[in-house]
């Protein structure tokens, strides 16, 4: 049982200010919703570096090693056979496939990692209940706070004071 308080701001500056202020007040879990990335707001919300690159690295290592070992095991170990008098373990010939598996694994790790971190897919989220919020993906700059229902009213007040328009609150029905 949580509830969200939403407010729309005029420009990046107002948005960042509001974010900083609410953060100081420590009101619930804050988030900004913008049609384009606004690095300033991420700072204001105190979001650290994204772990996606690390995930990508794991993918790369797994894909690369896996790809090479697969070829080596299949052609040189499990079914070694004379093919045109070439060596069974032909390292140069294994490079292209190794490269491709590396890239493929990396890409898949990146995307799945991103989805996991972003909590995708979640096609329905309570904030979508607010009709005005639909501008968030077009030109609206929104700030949202996930708070205890009790505290919701206070946060709404705070938002209005900070100059938010269309301040509204959503209850998550349990």
């Amino acid at each position: 049982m949580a509830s969200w308080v939403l407010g729309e701001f005029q420009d990046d500056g107002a948005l960042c200010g509001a974010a900083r202020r609410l953060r100081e007040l420590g009101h619930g879990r804050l988030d900004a919703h913008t049609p384009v990335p606004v690095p300033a707001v991420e700072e204001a919300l105190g979001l650290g570096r994204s772990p996606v690159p690390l995930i990508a690295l794991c993918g790369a290592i797994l894909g690369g090693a896996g790809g090479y070992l697969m070829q080596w095991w299949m052609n040189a170990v499990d079914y070694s056979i004379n093919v045109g008098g070439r060596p069974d373990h032909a390292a140069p010939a294994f490079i292209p496939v190794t490269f491709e598996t590396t890239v493929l694994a990396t890409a898949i790790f990146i995307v799945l990692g991103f989805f996991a971190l972003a909590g995708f897919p979640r096609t329905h989220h309570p904030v979508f209940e607010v009709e005005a919020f639909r501008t968030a993906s077009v030109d609206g700059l929104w700030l949202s706070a996930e708070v205890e229902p009790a505290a919701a009213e206070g946060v709404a007040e705070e938002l209005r004071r900070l100059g938010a328009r269309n301040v509204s609150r959503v209850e998550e029905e349990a």
Partner: protein
Amino acid sequence: MSAESAARVERVDPLEPVPVLAGRPGDRELNDALFEPVWAKTRRGWLALFAVAVPLAGLLFLAIAYTLATGIGVWGNNVPVGWAFDIINFVWWIGIGHAGTLISAILLLFQQRWRTSINRFAEAMTLFAVIQALIFPALHTGRPWFDFWLFPYPSTLGLWPNFKSPLIWDVFAVNTYFLVSLLFWYVGLIPDLAALRDTSRSRAARVAYGIFALGWRGSARHWRHHRIAYLLLAGISTPLVLSVHSVVSFDFAVSVLPGWHTTVFPPYFVAGAIFSGFAMVLTLVIPARKVFGFESVITGKHLDNMAKVMLATGLMVSYGYLVEHFNAWYSGDHLESFLFFTTRQRGPYAPVYWLMIFCNVVVPQVFWFRRARQSTWALWVAALLVNVGMWTERFVIIVTSLHRDFLPSSWAMYYPTWVDWSIYLGTLGFFGTLFLLFLRFVPAVSASEVKELRRELEHEAQAHAAH
């Protein structure tokens, strides 16, 4: 707004640089303008094109069914010419499929702003081109129903693929390329899908786009992962693009056949791929921006830059031809010299060779001239010719090398059959169909990125004013 800004683009003073974004429209304006093709009624021109593309696609599937039913003997292939239209078209389409990822990835890494308004377009083209390309390796085998034997899986034959074969490298490269391009394209598309969801008027559209948007809320958390993920994908796509056509070129370079067995192939194939890719982007973008009024976002600047890229890659391709012939002479290999200085110039397929030289070496030279680069007509015709030229290049490489190889006793001619032509034209139709559907249901220009670009430009303007 598009009309007048378009006019502005045409009336641009040649001395001052053409803007990458015409006018100073607001986010909402941009959004409406860019989504307009999706929300507006189906255009007549679109319908007309669709009515052409779909029957052609139908022809493709008929020809495929016929081939599967009777055997690839219905094609013109024979011994010695074991590969012909099948692999020519494969390489041609794969080549075309290179511009997209290249534009989005490499230009993104190099912070080329002008990329933003054409990357989505180009990536879509990539995907659809690769889909066409994938048809051919799958279909060209004698027993397509056993194609899955090319994948390493524990089979009842207890046997694995031969990883020394360039065809296996192909299987991995092309499929990887398709998947990665798809992911790259989709990840970049998510914010716009969300925007479509939020600007949709009908519930159906809202649900449909909502599903594909995966619940994107433009949250700062989303953005921060999205940005880096997108950048990393761009990072790995760049070497991927270069690898794919290198691997395709290995199909030939790794063989012993004169005309195939050439070390210059990988770079020269990559250059050729980019060359043909940009040609295809131009071929499609020039009409599209007219029809959908994107002149304000896809400005003369973009066309101009693409023309320059084509000039550069065209010169690389020409250099490739030069090196091939030089090596044939310098190596003193009589088989190679015979191929490069007799078979190609004077053999039965000489007209194709000279057409290739004209389209790929002569035509791009017009891009030295600014006037040519800025006349959409000149650009479009040149681009078309380059597409033709790159097809003939693959014909020259594959067919002329095969039809007169080592032992004159086995020399023979190759003639395509109506099935060969149907499949080729069919893929054009299928490609067109997919592309038209894309133009109809997905914003062809990335709205979120254009908005981002707009902000950057504004900040710069302010910084400028401050001085």
